[in-house]
């Protein structure tokens, strides 16, 4: 028998039913729920008189539209949605990490933090960035509201087996570079639709060298190049991260779980439908210039001229993007001034991200023309950062230090850009209007966002003080 890939192994374990011509009925081990994509699903259950099949495999949090300043939710629609989640969780017996519980936060931050995310699990959520959890060797992907209802009712999903791709990062990542630069660079290379139809395994020395939080950043942005799921084979880094977390197995169960998880790597003779190589040895910090994550260049580069693009659609889309972004071809990236800086989101709001940004910021001040925001990914991350004094570093420099949530990544809460405002953001999408109607988003790493806040424009973080870069 031919060798099997990590994806094959996790998929095969979860097949409930496989009939020729029909989609596979796949068992789901963990279903994460938030307020925005679930109310219609719960309503559907009620209308059909159905129950939640496995409420104990379902975990909810409030993240998308919660305010990040203290006080009540003043937006009546956001409040109604949050109230609906609370009522639905009570009615159907689902654990809810509500605002103020101390365990709330962005769904893709709290899953790993609580140890719910584990190697070999199938994990879904009504959110496209569910791919984040693949960093642990889980098969994790985003679903829509009808599928949320399907999982609630049956604990399964009908899925066509995707094609598989190996994305291999070769070379060692230079100092000052991050997982964010790796994935932005990769998307620039393969394009925003390069992964459509695939489940991706990220591999290579540069992946092995990354912490769990950095691997999460990579897997998080899998959907930004079209692939629904991205996975990293679990290793000692994974086990060390998980050990002792509240929902991780304990004692003898831990030992047997780790033994099992060690088998979750691709066999040496495993085959993939596609193999892509991305060389990171010469990578330079990345900055997006356009309105999708594939429109990206090095910070040392210039805004490209869409007229030079080979594809006719790309030329039109590129010109449109430049008009929206208020940029012109040939403009140096380091000359682009920013009005706002956002450090947060399920891509880059974990403790290591905040430490890395704080190392750049420490003892410096935010450019007076810039409004800068730090939004920790969860209440736990916020507590940890405060215990380390990172809040003081940010506040002393002139950043705002907020409560946990999705915040300005998608601007469903009051944290939005005004029309025409330009933002250096650690989030995952630079789509038109994503952070606020008419807002202009440039995606960068936490270090690059911090540096942009200090200088009021994009700067190459590698040129800053060496101690800040390597910290």
């Amino acid at each position, binding site marked *: 028998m031919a060798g099997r890939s990590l994806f094959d192994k996790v998929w095969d374990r979860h097949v*409930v*039913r496989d009939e020729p011509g*029909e*989609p596979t*009925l796949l*068992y789901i*081990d*963990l279903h994460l729920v938030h307020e*925005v*994509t679930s109310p*219609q699903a719960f*309503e*559907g259950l009620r209308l059909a008189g*159905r129950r939640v*099949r496995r409420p104990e*495999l379902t975990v909810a949090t409030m993240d*998308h*539209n919660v305010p990040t300043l203290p006080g009540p939710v003043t937006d009546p629609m*956001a409040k109604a*949605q949050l109230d609906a989640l609370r009522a639905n969780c009570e009615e159907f017996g689902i654990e809810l990490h509500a605002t103020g519980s101390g365990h709330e936060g962005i769904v893709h931050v709290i899953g790993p933090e609580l140890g719910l995310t584990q190697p070999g699990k199938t994990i879904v959520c*009504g*959110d*496209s960035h569910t791919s984040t959890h693949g960093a642990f060797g889980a098969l994790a*992907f*985003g*679903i*829509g*509201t*009808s*599928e949320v*209802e*399907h999982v609630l*009712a*049956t*604990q*399964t999903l*009908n899925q*066509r087996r*995707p094609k598989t791709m190996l994305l291999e990062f070769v070379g060692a990542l230079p100092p000052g570079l991050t997982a964010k630069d790796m994935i932005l660079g990769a998307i620039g290379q393969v394009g*925003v*639709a390069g992964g*459509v139809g695939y489940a991706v395994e990220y591999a290579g020395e540069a992946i092995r060298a990354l912490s769990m939080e950095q691997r999460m950043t990579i897997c998080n942005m899998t*959907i930004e190049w*079209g692939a*629904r799921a991205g996975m990293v084979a679990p290793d000692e880094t994974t086990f060390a991260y998980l050990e002792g977390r509240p929902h991780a197995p304990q004692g003898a169960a831990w030992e047997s779980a780790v033994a099992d998880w060690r088998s979750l790597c691709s066999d040496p003779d495993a085959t993939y439908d596609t193999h892509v190589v991305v060389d990171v040895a010469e990578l330079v910090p990345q900055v997006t210039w356009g309105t*999708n994550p594939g429109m990206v260049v090095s910070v040392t580069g210039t805004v490209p001229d869409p007229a030079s693009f080979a594809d006719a*659609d790309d030329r*039109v*889309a590129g010109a*449109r993007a430049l008009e929206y972004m208020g940029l012109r071809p040939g403009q140096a990236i380091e000359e682009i001034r920013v009005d706002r800086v956002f450090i947060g989101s399920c891509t880059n709001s974990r403790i290591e991200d905040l430490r890395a940004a704080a190392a750049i910021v420490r003892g410096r001040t935010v450019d007076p023309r810039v409004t800068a925001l730090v939004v920790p990914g969860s209440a736990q991350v916020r507590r940890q950062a405060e215990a380390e004094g990172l809040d003081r570093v940010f506040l002393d420099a002139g950043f705002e230090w907020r409560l946990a949530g999705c915040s300005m990544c*998608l*601007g*469903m809460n009051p944290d939005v850009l005004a*029309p025409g405002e330009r933002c250096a953001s650690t989030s995952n*999408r630079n*789509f*038109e209007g*994503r952070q606020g*109607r*008419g807002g202009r988003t440039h995606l960068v790493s936490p270090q690059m966002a911090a540096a942009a806040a200090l200088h009021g424009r994009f700067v190459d973080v590698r040129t800053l003080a060496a101690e800040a870069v390597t910290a």
Partner: protein
Amino acid sequence: MKAISKVEGRVAVLDRPDIDTDQIIPKQFLKRIERTGYGQYAFFDWRFDEEGNERPGFELNQPPFADARILLAGRNFGCGSSREHAAWALQDYGFDVVIAPSFGDIFRSNAAQVGLVIVELPEEQVKELMESVDLDRGSDLTVDLEALTVTTTAGKVLPFAFDESSRYRLLNGLDDIGLTLQHEDEITAYEAARQRP
């Protein structure tokens, strides 16, 4: 879900690649807890200016595209966020079919769930269809899910592929959950055999 087999109707052209679901339904409209009524917000930031006036230059505001039931769009349509609201908004706006060279994976699943027909045709055929549309008087197309064909008023017939089980569900208006629950004993057996999680 309503059964759907054949759509004959007016075509609208939105010749842009990588139209993401944030454009199809901007986030400010995702706070509603209903499943209906999203059509008025479809492509909101493209359709309307900041004062709420229709942008005359936007494709879907062209009079010949009014009452369109079929949308012709560029590659990678529906990329980005998993919001099923995008499929709801397109349907509620009046579209029964979207034809494009490729689609975002999650959008494709969502569309199948709600009965919005997704037709994938080679890029050159989509471009050809776009060019054949009469931009002054409007044009019609017929999409036949039984025959798996797109037919122009000039009589040109373009076959397309479609996932067979999705097609069966669409043609019969079947509820996916109801179908799965016919196999509930297999789910129970799987859970028992695995004894975890």
